[in-house]
């Protein structure tokens, strides 16, 4: 398991290659990349700033990954979550799950994202093209997505 929080960008392909290494028992790898959009429900966005509770974030994400490993037969998993200033097109989060078969890898990746959204200590504030800054409000749909597991 690899969990990192960082301000700098990540290279998804390099991370997958590193996780895979020389292993030949992995039959399925699912990669999810969350990206900063240029709009939020039609409002043009200039930037997104992610604040984190750094002392808690890695341990909390590790707990979420441990929970995923209890539920599905994962060979390995990786989560990288960025914080700081993001511009439209920038990567925000990377989730990689590796398993013998696709079902576990797909489901574990979806579970990890749903849980990260509602439990990992990060908060987004958005800045519109007009220069207005506001905190992003947590979505009920995210809570519902996490509750289905």
């Amino acid at each position, binding site marked *: 398991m690899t969990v990192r929080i960082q301000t700098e960008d990540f290279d998804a392909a390099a991370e997958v290659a590193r996780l895979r290494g020389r292993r030949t028992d992995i039959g399925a790898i699912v990669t999810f990349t*969350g990206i900063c959009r240029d709009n939020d429900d039609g409002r043009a966005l200039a930037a997104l700033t*992610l*604040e*984190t*509770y750094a*002392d*808690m974030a890695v*341990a*909390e994400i590790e707990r979420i990954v441990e929970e995923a490993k209890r539920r599905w037969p994962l060979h390995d998993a990786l989560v990288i*979550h960025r914080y700081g200033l993001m511009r439209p097109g920038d990567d*925000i*989060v990377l989730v990689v799950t590796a398993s013998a078969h696709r079902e576990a890898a797909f489901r574990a990746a979806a579970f990890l*994202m749903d849980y*990260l*959204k*509602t*439990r*990992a*200590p*990060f*908060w*987004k*504030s958005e800045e519109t093209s007009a220069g207005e800054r506001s*905190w*992003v*409000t*947590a979505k009920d749909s*995210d809570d519902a997505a996490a509750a289905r597991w």
Partner: protein
Amino acid sequence: MTVKLKYFAWVRERIGTPEEEIVLPPDVVTVADLIQHLKTRGEEYVYAFENDGIVRAAVDQRHAAAGADVRAAREVAFFPPMTGG
């Protein structure tokens, strides 16, 4: 018994500081008690905690419910619902 308090996102902005240390009064047992105590410290705290049940807490860097015990805590954090991912 002193405890470090940390605030994040709009909770931090409303209170006006990212962290502080306070002496925990003997009648503060739970997270909910601590919130009630903080609300006696000034308007900024009343503002931050104005809607009961919105602000989340972590005790020693783990998510904690309103009834969680804070008497032995070293660090309690308060923050809005998370919006990462």
